[in-house]
């Protein structure tokens, strides 16, 4: 399908632009579709394209040397990704993959630079879009480094644990994130870390504490 001006209007980068200008910018934008699970950006590859999400959800994540994934964000329609890498010029700072089938609009680095130069409104919008990114990054940094998420989750599990046949308290990842003061994206990984330490066994719908002392140690609670 051709790129639609209507859809461009709701993207922060292009808000407030008159239709005739959007019409010209449209010619620099291309559409890209990706299937569920498909990667659209590879970390470390030259940063050439900035993407806007038209429909679907994209997961932006980093992979560590030992192959572990850390989700950074879920990006939804009208949001952009890879902006910073493209504007700085260099490499893609993270991977991005389609969590569901997605439709993206892409613009190449050179074209983006020309648009920013030729349309002052876009330059102002870019500042706004980047400021929002910075806000998100700051809270991500908080989540990743200031707080020891697995320890906090371990503490929550201890506080909420019931026994096999009596009381069976239930928590969603969302709730654990709220209690731990972190993002939902951090919980799955934290639980895996705790499982790798041998303190719990993760089952469908159940977190079984198999070694309470190990869990207490992770939580920093005196035994």
């Amino acid at each position: 399908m051709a790129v639609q001006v209507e859809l461009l209007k709701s993207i922060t980068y292009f808000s407030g632009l008159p239709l005739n200008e959007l019409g010209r910018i449209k010619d620099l934008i291309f559409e890209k579709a990706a299937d569920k699970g498909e990667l659209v950006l590879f970390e470390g590859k030259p940063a050439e394209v900035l993407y806007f999400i038209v429909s679907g959800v994209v997961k932006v994540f980093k992979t560590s040397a030992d192959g572990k994934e850390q989700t950074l964000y879920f990006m939804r329609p009208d949001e952009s990704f890879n902006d910073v890498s493209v504007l700085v010029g260099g490499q893609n700072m993270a991977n991005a993959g389609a969590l569901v089938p997605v439709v993206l609009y892409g613009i190449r680095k050179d074209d983006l630079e020309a648009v920013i130069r030729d349309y002052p409104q876009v330059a102002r919008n870019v500042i706004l879009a980047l400021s929002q990114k910075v806000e998100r990054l700051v809270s991500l940094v908080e989540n990743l480094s200031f707080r020891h998420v697995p320890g906090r989750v371990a503490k929550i599990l201890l506080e909420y644990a019931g026994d096999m046949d009596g009381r069976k308290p239930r928590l969603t990842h969302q709730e654990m994130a709220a209690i731990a003061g972190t993002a939902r994206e951090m919980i799955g990984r934290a639980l895996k870390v705790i499982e790798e330490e041998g303190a719990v066994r993760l089952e469908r719908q159940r977190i079984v504490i198999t070694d309470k002392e190990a869990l207490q140690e992770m939580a920093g609670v005196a035994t």
Partner: protein
Amino acid sequence: MVEMPSIDRERCNGCGLCIRVCYCKALTLVDNVVIIVETEECGWCTQCEAVCPTNAISCPFEIVIEE
């Protein structure tokens, strides 16, 4: 009986993202609201909860101590 993720129908805005992320066809849209059917295939991956923009889906975990 297989327990399935629960849906708060009041919150669901019918965007369909949960359906697209789910690998087991447990979720469908009826009259613009998601309904869920029981299936052994649901592995409680919690992706539906993760993508839902309105917090309409929850996949709670029981927390128990093994004796």
